[in-house]
């Protein structure tokens, strides 16, 4: 009988150590990790946009999109506390162990979008699964036209990865526009919803791809703005989160329309999402 062909950890999680923990925003922490097995630590490869199943020993397992890029980027997870398992993760300290299965899912189609302008539009923690698109684009600066980040959150305290965004600004030609819903003393960025930045940033439509991720209202407003300006549905990408138990297309918990987020996604074009006929 068949074997799984890919170089993925399918059934028994590999043990990894949390090497460092960083508080990002309220309820969100970043966990840097390395695999206990030296050979795996060397050989583990994930494509940008894939996800893993993370075991918190004693609490359970959850699916989480990978924020890191395969090249020259530290392995980490950025996770919000939302329930029993993620509570368990947040209770861990450096030196503690977690389990990892994967990587699973399709990933971002960088080869297909070479030479284009890249616009990354994120709301709140929606920047986590899109982080690797920026890292990749900045590492391969010559493969892209304009690289634009439009990022918004309720308040300045809800913006992720702020110091990294400042670092990225040092790359020539990287444009970042940040916004918060309501004005705050000392805030130098924009005020208003993220989709209003599309106009302010003069986002081009020609030869452009957009990556959009965030809460449903924010997502829909941005889609409306982008498509209204003439960006085609197939050039808008998003990545979905779903309740998952297996990650390998068997438990079927993540079925959306006729697809499974774990094996057909988690990255979809807006064109695909429209045909799935379910609430995103």
């Amino acid at each position, binding site marked *: *009988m*068949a*074997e*799984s*062909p*890919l170089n*993925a950890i*399918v*059934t*028994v*999680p590999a*043990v990894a*150590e949390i090497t460092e923990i960083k508080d990002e925003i309220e309820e969100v922490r970043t966990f840097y990790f390395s695999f*206990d097995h030296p050979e795996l630590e060397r050989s583990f490869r994930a494509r940008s946009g894939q996800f893993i199943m993370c*075991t918190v*020993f*004693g*609490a*359970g*397992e*959850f699916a989480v999109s990978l924020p890191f890029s395969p090249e020259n980027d530290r392995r980490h997870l950025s996770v919000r506390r*939302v*329930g029993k*398992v*993620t509570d368990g993760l947040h209770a861990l300290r450096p*030196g*503690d*162990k977690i*389990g990892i299965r994967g990587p699973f899912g399709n990933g971002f189609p960088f080869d297909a979008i070479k030479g284009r302008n890249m616009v990354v539009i994120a709301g709140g923690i929606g920047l986590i699964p899109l982080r690797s698109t920026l890292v990749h684009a900045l590492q391969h600066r010559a493969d892209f036209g304009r690289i634009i980040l439009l990022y918004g959150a309720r308040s300045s305290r809800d913006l992720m990865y702020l110091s990294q965004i400042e670092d990225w600004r040092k790359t020539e030609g990287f444009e970042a526009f940040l916004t918060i819903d309501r004005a705050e003393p000392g805030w130098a960025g924009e005020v208003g919803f993220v989709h209003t930045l599309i106009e302010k940033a003069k986002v081009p439509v020609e030869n452009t791809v957009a990556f959009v991720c965030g809460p449903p209202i924010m997502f829909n407003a941005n889609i409306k703005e982008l498509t209204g300006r003439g960006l085609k549905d197939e050039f808008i990408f998003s990545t979905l*989160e*779903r*309740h998952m*138990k*297996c990650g*390998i*297309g*068997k*438990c*079927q*918990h*993540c*079925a*959306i329309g*006729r697809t499974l987020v774990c*094996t057909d996604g988690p990255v979809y074009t807006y064109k695909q999402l429209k045909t799935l*006929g*379910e*609430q*995103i």
Partner: protein
Amino acid sequence: MHILPKSGLPRLVEALGEQHELYGPILHEVSGDALFEKLADPAALRLDAPIPYIPPKAAVFPHFEEILHYAYDRDSKKVDIARTDLVRPKALIGVRSCDLTGLACLDRFYLGQEFVDEVYRDHRRRTFIVANTCLGPFPQCFCVCTDSGPYAVEGYDLNLTDLGDHYLVESGSEKGAALAARLGLAPAGADAAGRRDAAVNASIASFDPAARENKAWISRAVNRLTTGFVKNETWEYIGHQCFECGACSYVCPTCSCFNIEDVTPAEGPTGRIRTWDSCSFEGYSRMAGEHNPRRPIEDRRNKRFFCKLSYSQSKKYLRPGCVGCGRCARVCPGDIGLPNVVQYIRRETTGR
């Protein structure tokens, strides 16, 4: 092809029992219900028992199963983690054609896609299957409409067809042929295939005409459902009939959804437990943080029928996902078993 006198059946069972746990149909001593179970007593095996309440899938995809266990000691930071391998070789004796086709669907789904389900694979690697031709339908059956019975053409190690005082034995694998040889079964005569075909044809002819008439409608339902032509009102009606009990999924030979939970007992390692799940349950697609993308019951309910009848799902099974066993129709308190759903889709177009 070989001949097994009926008096020789215990020898076959005994030979299988040497290296396998034995599973097969029995009649419950109090209720009289047909069950497909581990045989405590091989003599209790009843090949003539009606179609069992729960399909034999339960032997290879158990209702409740620990797939791995671990212990993490936070002080020493030591993790012990390992697969739980309790899978012993099993012989499933007396599997009817619909259920055998159901196993074929599960095989293609669990083993034939991008990833292999290693837990299921370990069960199936160690399974010996003795199929059993149905000489006549039970009231719920419509396998003739779904191309899955009453006679199995593949997927078994041995197949038995009752021809009066003996069984016609056909082998479908090397394992099966080896066992037939070991038992020294007599070769069947030249007329055996003809007599088998006569028995199978008589069986098909005795199906309810309504079941046979439904045949065309199943393929038309596949078409309408795949192309999105089933009206929303129809799904809403079907959705509102559903009690969300999950019984249909539990009895269906091709339903394969599962849940996974890590369970820590008072003492000893944590077990990762996999259990059957049903798309009808409200918590099925709920995510941490309470966002439930597939909330209304009609959404969850039509998921089941997409799974059984849509073309996209059929591609995974290499056939429709319904094998015509009729179990869901028998158990559903809301009267929306698959045959009825096909009826509703039909009424939409014909008005009757």
